């Protein structure tokens, strides 16, 4: 049984925001709502800058599911955490509970009124007839029903973002890590893509601004 997860490789993410754009485009996410975003730490510090792509992580024991007062969340057979927007009251409890800031609320009214919660669906749609107009409008495209993986992971140019069954993608990541070069520097091209690549000129000392 598959348990769909995302895995973001901080060594590879180049902060291109391709995943964010792919998600926006594929699901026609409204203005002001970002189901996925790229978070960068130590921005500009050579050797210390790291980025990861963050969205709903489809937790096995999801806190959003635990705190929802109207119980709109459910987990599919593939381990994807989805919700029924028809029942959502927009209270925002899930936003406070989520450690990743995944739940998003469209600011629909003049007074900052919260709309119904929107979040990453792992491109699995929601509780409407599969591939229907209603499903697309409320939840976005159902790529799993088309036999595809989430658009963000499939679009990732450096394959920093992996999406799929937790066992499969963690095997991919594990194999990637064991191939990584640790001789030259503990970061950079060799670390991200393994030995065989020709590293460029030696970088300046770590800690300097680029």
């Amino acid at each position: 049984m598959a348990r769909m997860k995302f895995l973001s490789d901080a060594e590879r993410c180049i902060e291109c925001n391709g995943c964010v754009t792919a998600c926006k485009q594929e699901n026609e996410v409204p203005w002001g709502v970002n189901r996925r975003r790229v978070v960068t730490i130590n921005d500009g510090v050579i050797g210390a800058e790291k980025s990861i792509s963050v969205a709903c992580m489809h937790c096995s024991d999801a806190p959003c599911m635990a705190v929802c007062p109207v119980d709109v969340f459910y987990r599919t057979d593939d381990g994807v955490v989805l919700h029924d927007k028809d029942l959502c009251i927009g209270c925002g409890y899930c936003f406070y509970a989520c450690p990743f800031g995944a739940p998003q609320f469209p600011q629909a009214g003049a007074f900052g009124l919260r709309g119904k919660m929107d979040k990453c669906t792992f491109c699995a749609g929601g509780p409407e007839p599969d591939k229907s107009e209603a499903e697309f409008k409320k939840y976005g495209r159902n790529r799993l029903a088309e036999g595809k993986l989430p658009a963000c992971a499939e679009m990732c140019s450096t394959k920093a973002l992996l999406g799929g069954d937790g066992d499969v993608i963690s095997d991919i990541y594990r194999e990637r890590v064991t191939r990584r070069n640790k001789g030259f520097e503990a970061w950079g091209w060799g670390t991200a893509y393994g030995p065989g690549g020709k590293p460029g000129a030696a970088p300046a000392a770590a800690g300097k601004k680029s």
Partner: protein
Amino acid sequence: MKRTALIVAALVGAVVLLPGCMEVEQTATPSKQGKYQGKPDATPWSNEPLAMGPKWSKGDRASWEEQIKKRQLGQHEDRRIYQ
């Protein structure tokens, strides 16, 4: 005669109108806390595959999982490069 008709009319009126004053029976289904209250969702493998795309047998979970696993392994570019 007129009095009898009035009494009958009053009785009929009472029979017809009085239920309107009664308490309506409320059959609210109690929500089970922690249980999903929304609509059911279909499984991905219950769909027909696209004409141009990955193939699986409709309704067969194993075949859907097999093809999606192949797609997941396509993300392993190290293997594609080194083999």
